């Protein structure tokens, strides 16, 4: 029996606004509880919500970035459920008139482009945070503390259609979405901070079947590694059950990082009744052409655009995607450097291999401000034209990361320039041949390992100032004609 998995992703993106969604409380990043709260985000009696215009602008930008149609008259709905960290015991969300519908995101898997269809993009407010004392879970805690700093922070939920078929694709989708919100400048996009949190809806069915299998939801993950493992585990778990002839239960599970398994949280008997209804405290969101056009003004150089530019510079799709998802400075540095070097592959390799490697080793997060594309491209050109050896180039780079030097003058001043002067090399070669007649006599053909030994001798006698390639050429010409 051949089985196939179908996955749909629901991702919450925390927007990077100054103030919360429905009040003017500052969005803060702190462990000190309840310092940025007011009557509205605490759900005090009589307090009212007033929408944050910037947040609405951001969700329109995200919807446009995800190629969605914009709903011109969006509505806020109340989603009713009781939970101690939900101050009003309803969450202001969107139901049948979300801001964005029917979009798609282009993702990269190896050297291939895929499209992930987006069902909807909607706005909601975040809840407070429960800190369970004595246990990580509410049902076994001895007490629970509540922190409402997070309460009311604007969230956007992006929901895909069930079109993802494996964990790698899911990861690529999240990477793409993350880069989109970063490039739009609407979220910090830090997974470790929970700026993106995702739920995966996974079902497994017979490959030939037109119907989806029973849906299992894995809730609240915020690392790509967990996402990948959780999906792989869940597909395996469900497949085994189906192969054994057992049925999969519709339920919500969570990924247990310690045990590396998914664990059942609650069984869904039908769907929960949230009694959605239009929030009478909030008039409809009128998103007209003018608003959309203003939002468009803030949209430029999205991941797809960047990827296109990178590809046009000569990089492969996967290398382009790598730089697309990297830091902005690296992307900028690459583009300005490759303009000088005209060699995309070697520039890519030098930047992502040597430069990033050395920075990691030296624990430098940001490029020192004296390091610019001119210096880097000069350095790349030095070793690409064999004027310095690759080893020297690495040394120069290390130096450059520590202090403001000019790679060319540094190479010259420190005698790192290799000579390609044929006459000079010829003189050195002649003397080495003369001094090593015993070896020369044992040479059988140009592929002989002893050729390398002789090249080494020439290099040594030049104190590494000559280009080893030229040495070899001249040596072979002298010996074998």
């Amino acid at each position, binding site marked *: 029996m051949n089985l196939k998995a179908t996955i749909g992703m629901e991702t919450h993106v925390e927007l990077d606004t100054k103030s919360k969604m429905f009040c003017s409380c500052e969005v803060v990043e702190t462990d000190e509880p309840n310092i940025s709260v007011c*009557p509205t985000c*605490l*759900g*005090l*009696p*009589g*307090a*009212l*919500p*007033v*929408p944050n215009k910037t947040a609405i602008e951001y969700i329109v930008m995200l919807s446009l970035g995800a190629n969605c149609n914009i709903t011109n008259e969006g509505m806020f709905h*109340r989603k*009713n459920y*009781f939970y*101690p960290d939900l*101050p*009003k*015991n*309803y969450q202001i969300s969107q139901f049948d008139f979300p801001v964005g519908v029917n979009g798609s995101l282009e993702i990269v898997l190896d050297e291939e482009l895929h499209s992930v269809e987006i069902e909807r993009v909607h706005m909601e407010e975040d809840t407070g945070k429960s800190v369970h004392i004595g246990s990580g879970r*509410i*049902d076994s805690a001895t007490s*629970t503390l*509540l922190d409402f700093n997070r309460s009311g922070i604007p969230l956007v939920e992006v929901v895909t259609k069930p079109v993802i078929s494996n964990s790698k694709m899911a990861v690529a989708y999240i990477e793409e979405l993350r880069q989109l919100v970063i490039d739009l400048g609407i979220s910090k996009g830090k997974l470790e901070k929970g700026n993106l949190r995702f739920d995966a809806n996974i079902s497994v069915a017979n490959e030939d079947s037109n119907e989806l299998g029973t849906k299992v939801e894995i809730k609240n993950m915020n690392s790509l590694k967990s996402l990948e493992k959780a999906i792989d585990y869940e597909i395996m778990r469900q497949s085994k059950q189906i192969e054994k002839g057992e049925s999969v239960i519709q339920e919500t599970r969570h990924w247990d990082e310690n045990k590396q398994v998914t664990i059942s949280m609650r069984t869904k008997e039908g769907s929960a*009744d949230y*009694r959605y*209804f239009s929030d*009478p*405290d*909030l*008039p409809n969101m009128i998103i007209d052409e003018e608003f959309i056009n203003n939002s468009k003004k803030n949209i430029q150089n999205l991941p797809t655009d960047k990827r296109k530019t990178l590809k046009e510079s000569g990089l492969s799709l996967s290398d382009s995607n790598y730089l697309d998802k990297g830091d902005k400075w690296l992307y900028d540095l690459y583009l300005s450097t490759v303009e000088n070097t005209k060699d995309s592959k070697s520039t890519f390799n030098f930047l992502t291999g040597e430069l990033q490697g050395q920075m990691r080793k030296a624990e430098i997060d940001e490029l020192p401000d004296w390091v610019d594309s001119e210096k880097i491209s000069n350095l790349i050109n030095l070793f690409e034209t064999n004027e310095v050896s690759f080893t020297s180039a690495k040394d120069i780079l290390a130096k450059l990361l520590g202090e403001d030097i000019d790679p060319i003058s540094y190479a010259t001043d420190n005698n790192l320039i290799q000579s390609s002067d044929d006459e000079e090399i010829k003189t050195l070669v002649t003397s080495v041949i003369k001094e090593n007649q015993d070896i020369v006599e044992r040479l059988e053909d140009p592929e002989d390992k002893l050729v390398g030994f002789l090249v080494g001798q020439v290099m040594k006698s030049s104190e590494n100032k000559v280009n080893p390639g030229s040495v070899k050429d001249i040596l072979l010409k002298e010996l074998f004609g």
Partner: protein
Amino acid sequence: MAEKIPSISKINELFQNKEMKPSELFEQVYETASYTESVLHAHLELFYDEGLKLSKESDKRYTKNESFGLLDGIPIAIKDNINIYGYKTTCSSKMLSNYVSPYDATVVTSLKKAGTIFTGKTNLDEFAMGSSTENSAYGPTKNPWNPNFVPGGSSGGSAAVVSAGSAVASLGSDTGGSIRQPASFCGVVGFKPTYGTVSRYGLIAFASSLDQIGPITNTVDDTRIIFNEIQGYDSKDATSITPEYTKLENKKIKVGILKELMQEGVSNESQNEVNKVVNLLKEKGHDVTEISLPLTEMALSVYYLIAPAECSANLSRFDGVRYGIREDASTSYEMMNKTRSVGFGEEVKKRILLGTYALSAGYFDEYYGRALKVRSKIITDFKTAFDEVDFILSPTTPTPAFGFGEKTKNPLEMYLSDLCTIPANLAGLPAISIPTGLSENNLPLSVQIMGKPCSDYSLIDFAESIEEMVEFNFSPNLLKENNES
């Protein structure tokens, strides 16, 4: 000693001419309260110390001729579902028996800036759900005209204090008639402004799309003065509007009599008041025509789906987690359950259940969804009607005040007492109730005038002209008895 309190303009004149000081008026009002309260139970809390202090500050302003305006030094009572910083806001519920508000409602901020002195907080039906103040967790308020009768509700306390003279005016809230119906029962003026003209920020919500704060006063002019102070756009309320008030161009006014509120279900006594006013209007040369809005008959049903639906979500926040009372339990859900069971009274629970049901999957379209559709038709109907007439005249209530316990056993009958007032809430219209006469058993009767949205000031002007025509000069028995003694 109790005297009928003069109008706000008159009081201001006395203050300006140094014939009376704000602190003297405050003491007088407090003295009235100290004997009327024992009978009426209209105030839940009196702010004597702070009131006296603030009224003395007002004294100084008048001495220096630096008063803040007409409302400076005027003692006003606030319904106990409107937040005043540092004071309890109980909503007459056990749930909030210990709740002290950390912020002012926008209307309270406006009145404070105007130099108003708060007498205290007034009684109401729990969370403003009721028509008699019998649903208060702290006991009912009595009608100053006859303590055997209810003062109406839900702003029963706010109407009673004005009627009894223990405040010059008061603020109430009106979701389905909660200002106008008690004003009518207590023989005072009650005004529900156009939805959105007065900020709801700081008013504890019952049904957000219907709730509106408004004044209860002795005269229509007092209503104008207070409305003028509390109206206007508020950035803290997203449903707040920047009103562009319409003016009346013609001296000759066209008045519509709403047929559906002049038939069976409305007492003859109440209908007679309308007829009396109609005759007076005709004498003045105004046009009076009968109009028919058949959907008015469905207004009550629509209201009893929309209001409970909204309240079921609005009252979810009372869970014992962050404020209010909390019942001990071993889990958080059990705690919430117990707290809500103990904290809410019967009527509140009934409406939460009703609303929850109306919003539930499978019932939504049939109940709440359909109610919304009828509501928008009612709005359209009124709009069409106001193309023909300037104002719509009707009784405020089907009957004068009823006795305690008379309708508590039959909720439908209780709900019917808001028959005439609910349509204005559904359509967001301004509506005012003014006393016009007394019933057979010496209880006040009123008429209601509705205007089109944002006609508030012209509606007030028109009501004032009727006020002059009818010359309602009666005082409640409570005041008379005390005068005699």
